[in-house]
């Protein structure tokens, strides 16, 4: 009840006209940042941070956190319409979102994505409101071994379920791992596989790769297939939102699972990107329509979006309660606290009640406002697909290029982007799956770092991955996921055999 009263007070802080205006500005900017690939919420917020210098801390965090919500919503837009993930966590959204758009169902996909995002955020923020202190300390349980086990779980829940041959999946994933290893090795401080080229110092950034693989690759494919969007014939129905809402409750289990995964990975700084992949992987495995995933299933949009937004939201919890950033964006916001003259850390909840509860209340209001804003623009976004390809394609290429450049402010990334575009095209043509490649690239070096940090600590003994209930549990879960096809077969056999004896008893 105490939290409830504090929350009400938080609402009274947020719902003054000035703060409400900041909120709206934040959401709109955020959606824009989300739509443009490469810019990213963390960069966007970092750029605007100095502008908030003279503002009241509460107003400042309301505006900046709303940019974050906006970006979380907006990331899905370009993924669904053009197969270009605006943000890393929207990569999994392209898997089914883009096929839906090609079928002329972009409106439905966008509605499903926005609504699921909202539900994910809502679950996370309710969790924050009522269980903040209890859950926060959970984040501290995570050392290198635990991080690695989570990354392993992400891989395992995603591997071995594609339609493509397992060899192609493995090949694709290995190329991803190899590229992820280029650049500075954080554990030894040495450069790897740069072959003396200083341009390769940065390695291959994941975002540059996805912009190329998906965005440019898709343009190349479209050019070959006749210079027009498949989704162009879509009728734009203003009531699409309501129609989609009627269908969505069917996927409640997927939503719930996505929200749970998201909250968990957000709090234990695993991040929104692994959360979206894991949620998609699990949904595909356990859904009745799992086989159809990748061809344009609404459920395949619901799963990653719920998880991503839940993770993005709950990542702010360790920031508020412990002063630990759960995501790059939270890290920038944390720096912001300092600039506004607040001291982040465990005492923030005690010393700055107004600020903390104002922020939490802003999460509720910001997400409601955000949902309203993006939903009203669904027909608008969907109608972009009606613009002739010859006009929109150069625009997309330009946006991709700007995005790829912004990631590291490095010119070389533009060439990498084009290179990845060709790889993406070739992969599609040869029927190699892109998802394992991308997953390996995004998580490869993180998983490697965690693994080696864990090995340093344990003196090289693998037993550290079973050393306590937490890490042991997650590792065991990963193994179950990895061998699930086998396990489900065995269970099936045992059931059939077992049916007899049970009847006899």
């Amino acid at each position: 009840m105490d939290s409830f009263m504090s929350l009400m007070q938080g609402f009274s802080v947020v719902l003054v006209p000035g703060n409400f205006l900041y909120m709206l500005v934040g959401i709109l900017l955020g959606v824009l940042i989300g739509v443009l690939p490469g810019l990213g919420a963390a960069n966007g917020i970092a750029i605007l941070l100095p502008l908030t210098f003279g503002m009241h801390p509460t107003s400042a965090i309301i505006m900046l956190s709303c940019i974050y919500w906006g970006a979380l919503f907006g990331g899905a837009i370009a993924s669904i319409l053009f197969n270009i993930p605006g943000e890393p966590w929207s990569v999994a959204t392209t898997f089914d979102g883009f096929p839906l758009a090609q079928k002329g169902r972009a409106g439905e996909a966008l509605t499903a994505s926005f609504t699921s995002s909202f539900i994910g955020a809502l679950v996370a923020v309710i969790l924050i409101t009522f269980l903040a202190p209890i859950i926060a300390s959970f984040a501290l349980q995570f050392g290198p071994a635990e991080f690695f086990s989570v990354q392993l779980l992400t891989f395992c829940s995603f591997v071995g379920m594609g339609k493509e041959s397992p060899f192609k999946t493995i090949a694709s994933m290995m190329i991803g791992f190899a590229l992820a290893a280029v650049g500075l090795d954080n554990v030894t401080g040495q450069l790897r596989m740069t072959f003396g080229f200083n341009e390769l110092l940065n390695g291959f950034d994941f975002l540059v790769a996805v912009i190329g693989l998906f965005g440019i690759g898709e343009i190349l494919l479209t050019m070959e297939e006749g210079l027009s969007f498949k989704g162009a014939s879509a009728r734009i129905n203003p009531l699409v939102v309501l129609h989609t809402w009627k269908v969505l409750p069917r996927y409640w289990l997927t939503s719930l699972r996505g929200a749970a995964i998201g909250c968990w990975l957000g709090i234990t700084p695993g991040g929104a990107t692994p959360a979206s992949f894991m949620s998609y992987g699990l949904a595909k495995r356990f859904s009745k329509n799992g086989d159809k995933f990748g061809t344009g299933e609404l459920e395949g949009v619901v799963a990653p979006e719920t998880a991503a937004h839940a993770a993005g939201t709950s990542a702010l919890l360790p920031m508020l309660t412990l002063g630990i950033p759960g995501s790059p964006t939270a890290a920038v916001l944390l720096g912001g606290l300092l600039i506004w003259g607040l001291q982040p850390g465990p005492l923030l909840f005690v010393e700055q009640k107004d600020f903390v509860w104002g922020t939490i209340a802003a999460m509720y209001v910001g997400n409601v406002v955000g949902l309203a804003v993006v939903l009203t623009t669904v027909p608008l976004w969907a109608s972009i697909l009606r613009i002739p390809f010859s006009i929109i394609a150069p625009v997309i290429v330009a946006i991709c290029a700007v995005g790829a450049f912004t990631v590291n402010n490095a010119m070389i990334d533009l060439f990498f982007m084009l290179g990845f575009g060709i790889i993406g095209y070739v992969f599609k043509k040869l029927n190699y799956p892109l998802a394992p490649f991308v997953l390996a690239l995004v998580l490869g070096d993180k998983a490697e770092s965690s693994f080696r940090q864990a090995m340093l600590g344990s003196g090289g003994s693998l037993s550290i991955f079973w050393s306590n209930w937490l890490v042991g549990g997650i590792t065991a879960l990963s193994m179950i996921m990895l061998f699930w096809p086998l396990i489900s077969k065995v269970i099936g056999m045992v059931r059939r055999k077992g049916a007899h004896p049970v009847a006899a008893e």
Partner: protein
Amino acid sequence: MSLKIKALTLGVGTALALSMTAANAWEPTRTVTFVVPAGTGGGADQMAREIQGVAAKHNLLKQPMVVINESGGAGAQGFLDVKNSKGDANKIIITLSNLFTTPLATGVPFSWQDFTPVAMLELDEFVLWVNADTPYKTAKEYIDAVKSSPGKFKMGGTGSKQEDQIITAAIEQQTGAKFIYVPYKGGGTVNEQLVGKHIDSTVNNPIEAVANWRAGKVRPLCVFDSERMSYTAKITKDMSWHDIPTCKESGLDIEYLMLRGIFSSPDVKQDAVDYYVDLFKKVEATPDWKDFTEKAAFKQTFMTGDKFKQWVADAAKLHHDLMEKAGFLAKKK
């Protein structure tokens, strides 16, 4: 009539002369690019954005200033970028110790001599921290414990072969203690890992650890400086930064401070350097900056010109020696 013309020419002449003097004093000719050779949210990034914010709030700059993060290859990306912008006075870079450590450890070709030194803003302190639940109250007690079980205690730090590991190596060389050094991506993570007891100690900067110190989660043992920090305001119930003993007092004679300095592109003229020095003087005079330095417990040491150059040269030599002793230098091909 002719008098009028004379007066007019005189007027024009004075105006010309005036504008000449104005032109002599260099000012940024376009947007000032402020390079941070580290990721968003870290210490250098926070400082750069604070400067940007202060400059904007108090209208200290006529041109806009943008902060960009070029963190690739332990900051090598940012340094190479500035190195390659020869003569571009509209570009400045804020340094961490990676100005020295990155070229030494990786062999990427740049050195502090490539850049035009502008000013030292502050020095960042390093403090030896342990988890507050451990029994160690002094650096000596802790080091003795590490010595008695070699290879069991984990020191966490930012990056590999950078400042945190250099300090760790220096402790090892001096005391004979043996740590397992575990490198993480950033100082915030390192501190969190200490609170979660995944590592036994850190050499975090004050700003990275202060929040958890106030909350009673971590305990400072000593500061790696020749004198105690000057801040006497209480941070916890009974301690201020000044109450932390120096490591030397505890028998651990190690001194290490990190440069938070500003450099510009190679071959930048003196008038541009003067302009920036003046700008940073103005920034440091604001109450916002005072507040910021106190929160971060920086050692306030503004330094310019030859004095600054000498400091950097000494620091470069110190890093070379320390890293050579620890075996961190890149192998010459």
